């Protein structure tokens, strides 16, 4: 079954045409990587998929449901099946780490507040952190630790579809590797589908089954991750070889 389907999405901000007809689909249990340069609209696409931004044209289907046509209650129910790790973690800085991790479960009344701490404890183990971080506040953690707590929060409700917005940007290579491994491990053990947005090719190869290259508002190339090295498209080649785009020079 198709978990996510993006159909002909267009979005402009004023005269800036960010997305110009994006089409994508993600099967259940599949891991898709969206590759693209900075500022090409990756985060905008994610916001549209999650219903936070309205596209100018086109529609989004989550498990076959058109999200522009559902009620607030239905949408909230759908969101519980979705996890998201934000580019800058977006942890609630007025809440402790354990409250962050257990937030969704408490809000959707799966558990009561008293059980929150023990609930969160299971997840810090999954992300390889010590239980002592549980009662710290997010601002007391390093960037890499915040990402890991963000990951714990994203998987805490056992979602069937998880989004990662540039999970390794701004981290050192060892931490990148660790985050990739944690993502891979946790997504697999949940048997969830995932969409990872990145401009880091190494990371893409680690976590992805399939890759889609976003360029100038469209999907320029799409295929199995192993085939990208053989791709002949000049822009994809430039991206792979990390050469500057001709237009800029």
């Amino acid at each position: 079954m198709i978990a996510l389907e993006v159909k002909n999405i267009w979005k402009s901000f004023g005269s800036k045409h960010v997305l110009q007809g994006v089409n994508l689909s993600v099967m259940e249990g599949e891991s898709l990587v969206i590759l693209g340069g900075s500022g090409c609209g990756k985060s905008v696409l994610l916001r549209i998929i999650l219903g936070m931004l309205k596209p100018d044209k086109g529609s989004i289907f989550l498990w076959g449901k058109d999200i522009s046509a559902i009620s607030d209650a239905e949408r909230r129910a759908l969101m519980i099946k979705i996890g998201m790790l934000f580019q800058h973690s977006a942890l609630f800085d007025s809440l402790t780490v354990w409250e962050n991790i257990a937030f969704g479960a408490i809000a959707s009344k799966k558990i009561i507040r008293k059980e929150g701490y023990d609930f969160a404890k299971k997840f810090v183990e999954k992300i390889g952190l010590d239980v002592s971080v549980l009662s710290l506040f997010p601002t007391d953690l390093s960037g890499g630790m915040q990402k890991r707590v963000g990951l714990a929060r994203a998987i805490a409700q056992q979602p069937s579809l998880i989004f990662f917005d540039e999970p390794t940007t701004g981290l050192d290579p060892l931490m990148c590797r660790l985050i990739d491994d944690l993502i891979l491990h946790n997504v697999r053990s949940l048997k969830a589908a995932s969409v990872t947005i990145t401009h880091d090719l190494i990371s893409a190869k680690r976590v992805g089954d399939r890759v889609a290259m976003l360029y100038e508002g469209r999907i320029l190339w799409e295929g199995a991750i192993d085939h990208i090295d053989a791709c002949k498209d000049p822009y994809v080649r430039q991206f792979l070889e990390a050469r500057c785009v001709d237009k800029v020079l």
Partner: protein
Amino acid sequence: MNIFQGLGNTCFKASQAFGQWVFFVGRALFSVVRPPIYWRQWGKQFFHIAFLSAPVVGLTAIFTGMVLALQSYTGFSRFSAESSIATVVVLSIVRELGPVLTGLMVAGRVGASIAAELGSMRVSDQISALWTMGVSATNYLIVPRLVALVVGMPLLVLCADAIGVFGGWCIARFVLGFNWILYTRETFEFLRIDDVMSGLIKAAVFGLMIASISCYQGYYARGGAQGVGEATTRAVVLSSITVLLMNYVLTSLLFVR
């Protein structure tokens, strides 16, 4: 761009924002009674917004009451009308100064903190994170602040009234050497329940205005730290002006009949 284009643009943007604000308030008011209700947040916000504002409001009120007693003594003793001081103090405080000064202090203290907190939650994607967890930001963030202010403002004004009148009483008794039994009797002689009620109605309206304006500014903040700073300034300035404006409107509605 010429000056008229600029003016036109500004007007257009302002009316667009006003429309958005009306929609925002409507949705928030509608959500007060619509579950889910986050009681913990309600309590937390009530504590931070209403309870912790009490000291600042109390200080404002006591000094205002004291000054009022001194000033009316200066004025009234010139034509031997000292016996009206108690009435002047209590009526000015209960009808005007209590609600307005409390409104302005709360607009500064609470309006700024609401706009800054929601604004930084917005620019750091915490509000988006709520959305992806299926939690309505209106129910979780806006409604608790709105309720805390609409309920808390009248309570704060009641305190301000009592403390302000007490400040005047202290000056009358200890500085001006009035007979305190007489002064106390004069204080309550011409005070009617309507006077107090009208002050409380004003307070609730001011609370609604401060909450909705500050939440709106924070919720729609954009552009990083600078944007949050601008939103905070706008929240304080707009809520203060709105308090003064609404005070005039309500006074003319409540008293001039």
